[in-house]
């Protein structure tokens, strides 16, 4: 009984937070679309959506491009995960950090970079603009890090000796992978696949910039129906369809994960090696080249563009960052957006880590059906369109206190997006803490406090650090909900980039790319710091984080 009460106490703050800043606004805006003027239910939108061939096409495209994007992401990122997890080479740590940068760059920036790279004037001579290939490649660019970090994180902790044992017994490298490594990686791969599928299924920015008029996802259609057409009945039905699809996906993933939970994973100390054979060197080189092509080229285009002006190479874009006014469409100097972004992201990270930590602590102690459900419910913000949440804020948060212009709304919205990641990162770690370790400490004479400090804290600290890094980076890059609620006097970096890009003048375009470069550097630095922390505190590897 007391345990249950404690759990409830732990869960109350995160649940209350999500109720106010997620559930209430979303329920309000969806209900607004499903009610008629007299206050009764009007479900005509359902028929309109189901009966529309165009919307059925959108739904089908959403589904298959998400599946194809996930497959392509895995094809490109799984070898990269292997290389980064098992080989030691110069610059590995920097590359590991750089790989994460695309994941948190705002889509406006990535869209612009990809357009330059794969558009009609491609320097490599490939025009994929408005084709489905541009979408798939951009999705692979974005989600590469999800696979590398989730799967690679587990991979580097796998005990090499099991693979070596299999090889000694005569297995080929491929057989050893299939029989020994893959079963151990499968839970992480499943989680990474689910996340990648979720992100690409709800893709918005990439579709809007690269998709052209013929490719639209449900998410992009919700935006169009809400923001452009204010057709709330259709938007509400689409939002429910998307939520249901995401819910179904989570249930399936949960089932699969549970069925596989029995696989025992042998973990050893991280043991990276320099590539020894010629074949290994080629494999490493080929993968690094592929990563450079997929991940580094678009980023390099960004940097290059920031130094370009109408007359050639120039620093005007960078100088314009410090100038207020000058027709940049912002009411502050662009450089101030960096301060805003950092402040908002820190606030959002604190909110997300504290609330997520509470939720993870509660969830880790229970395998009950309720806990599993809650675990899935916490992921729902990821499946909800940012415009649904943003517009929901407008009609739901006006009373009793009008929060709509509050500066706190931005970090709150960002925390809603970051919270699922925090919970997902921390729960498995907290769950994996082996009771026997603690008992052993007690047998050896450690006080409970000492046992917690020596056993739990190192593991928890690492998880908190990783979760905070993720939350920080996500808050920094969040664009969809922020753009609806950010105040003009406090734009974030992604919002400022978007506005600069929309203004005339090559100076503004260069400034937008300069600001993108800054964002990229901050993100990479944040990831590097987290990785350093991880490396230093890696004692006993209790989990894949």
């Amino acid at each position, binding site marked *: 009984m007391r345990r249950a009460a404690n759990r409830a106490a732990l869960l109350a*703050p995160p649940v209350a937070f999500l109720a106010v800043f997620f559930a209430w606004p979303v329920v309000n805006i969806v209900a607004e679309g499903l009610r008629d003027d007299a206050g009764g239910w009007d479900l005509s939108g359902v028929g309109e959506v189901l009966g529309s061939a165009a919307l059925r096409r959108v739904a089908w495209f959403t589904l298959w491009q998400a599946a194809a994007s996930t497959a392509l992401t895995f094809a490109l990122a799984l070898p990269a995960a292997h290389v980064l997890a098992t080989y030691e080479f110069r610059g590995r740590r920097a590359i590991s950090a750089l790989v994460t940068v695309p994941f948190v760059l705002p889509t406006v920036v990535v869209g612009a970079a990809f357009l330059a790279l794969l558009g009609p004037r491609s320097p490599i001579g490939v025009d994929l603009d408005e084709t489905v290939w541009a979408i798939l490649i951009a999705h692979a660019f974005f989600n590469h890090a999800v696979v590398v970090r989730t799967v690679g994180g587990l991979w580097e902790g796998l005990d090499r000796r099991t693979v070596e044992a299999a090889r000694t017994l005569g297995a080929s490298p491929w057989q050893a992978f299939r029989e020994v490594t893959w079963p151990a990686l499968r839970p992480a791969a499943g989680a990474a696949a689910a996340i990648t599928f979720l992100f690409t299924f709800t893709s918005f920015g990439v579709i809007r910039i690269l998709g052209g008029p013929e490719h639209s996802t449900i998410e992009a259609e919700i935006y169009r129906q809400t923001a452009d057409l204010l057709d709330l009945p259709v938007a509400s039905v689409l939002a429910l369809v998307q939520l249901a699809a995401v819910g179904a996906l989570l249930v399936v993933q949960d089932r699969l994960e549970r069925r596989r939970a029995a696989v025992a994973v042998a973990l050893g100390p991280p043991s990276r090696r320099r590539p020894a054979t010629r074949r290994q060197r080629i494999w490493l080189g080929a993968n690094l080249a592929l990563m450079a092509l997929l991940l580094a080229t678009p980023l390099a285009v960004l940097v290059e563009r920031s130094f370009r002006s109408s007359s050639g190479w120039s620093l005007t874009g960078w100088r314009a960052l410090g100038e207020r*006014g000058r027709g940049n469409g912002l009411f502050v100097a662009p450089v101030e957006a960096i301060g805003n972004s950092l402040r908002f992201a820190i*606030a959002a990270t604190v909110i997300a880590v504290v609330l997520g930590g509470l939720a993870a602590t509660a969830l880790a102690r229970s395998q009950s059906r309720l806990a599993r459900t809650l675990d899935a419910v916490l992921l729902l913000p990821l499946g909800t369109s940012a415009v649904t949440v943003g517009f929901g804020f407008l009609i739901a948060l006006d009373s009793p206190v009008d929060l709509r212009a509050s500066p706190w709304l931005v970090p709150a919205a960002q925390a809603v997006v970051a919270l699922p990641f925090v919970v997902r990162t921390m729960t498995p770690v907290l769950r994996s803490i082996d009771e026997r370790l603690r008992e052993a400490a007690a047998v050896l004479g450690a006080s409970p406090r000492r046992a917690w400090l020596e056993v739990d804290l190192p593991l928890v600290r690492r998880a908190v650090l990783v979760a905070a890094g993720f939350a920080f980076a996500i808050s920094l890059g969040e664009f969809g909900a922020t753009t609806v609620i950010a*105040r003009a006097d406090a734009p974030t970096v992604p919002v400022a980039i978007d506005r600069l890009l929309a203004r*005339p003048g*090559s100076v503004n375009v260069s400034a937008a790319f300069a600001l993108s470069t800054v964002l990229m550097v901050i993100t990479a630095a944040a990831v590097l710091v987290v990785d350093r922390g991880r490396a230093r505190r890696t004692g006993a590897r209790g989990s894949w984080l």
Partner: protein
Amino acid sequence: MTPRSRMLAAVLASATLLAACGDTDDPSSEANATPEAEQDAPASIRLLTHDSFALSDGVLEQFTEDTGIEVELLQGGDAGTVVNQAILTNGNPQADVLFGIDSTFLTRALDEDLFVPYEADGLDEVDEALLLDPEHRVTPIDYGDVCLNYDRAWFDESGTPVPTALEDLIDPAYADLLVVENPATSSPGLAFLLATVEAFGEDGWQDWWRALADNGVEVSSGWEDAYYGSFSGSAGSEGTKPLVVSYASSPPAEVIYADPPVDEAPTGVIEASCYRQVEGAGILNGTDDEEAAGELIDFLLSETVQADVPMSMFVYPVRSGVELPAEFREHAVSPDEVHELPADEIDANRERWIDEWTDVVLR
């Protein structure tokens, strides 16, 4: 509770506390740190507007100095999104004044009773043709023309004459030269579609677009893609299309932002293609400070703001007798004859036109 979980709870609780303390000097302090001047005039009003809204440094501060009223800006997306936000919160608006409504969304907003009537000072200085609403629920502030722009250098070098009429564009001589924006996703794209509806009539515009599609028109999803990506005339652009749907004020913008400075704009405007959009402001229904909101509308129509809009937003002031900046006088054209459609006609047909356009051009 096990000792372990108690400890963790304590850590998390102190983290919460830390967060609460640490963040008081975070975003909220900005809200608190308003200047002392506010003590005499506590009024502060909110202006909801689109992302393209801009005024030069010090202009809004001038208003605060004159009236003691602080202006808080809310920018919520493009013009359509902002109007839709306002309609959604009608009666309990998030702001007091909305700026940036044009004929495209006017009828819908007026039908929803979004605005309170207000007759602004200085309205008698405005050309009657620019009045958006006879009941003054919306006050005109500026206007701009969406026009085809052309790359001067390209036409000089190729010897091809610059097109002078919309009909020219379906001539094979102009095959593969034009990039337009998708009217479903872009406001200049929609304006250009409306121009063709007005020019060729309800029964003729589809045929013209069909011929244009056969003649190799490129469609971009937004103005930036079209202008900076595909159009060849913008300084530093790598685009290949010498014709683009942009604004009448794009040539002066090219001059103003040129680096190094130039004497002549690299682009020109095809006057026969221009569609005029008048942009207005209104007091939102449900505001709790109608008087201050009215003062802000007066200010938007004052010479201070009117003289500033060309350089800050690349549009023309509606107030007559306001002197234009030199770049506008020298490099911008303001055609006498422009295409325009009545707001109620746009409202009744907009979605159908966009759907039909999509069928004709993209399928």
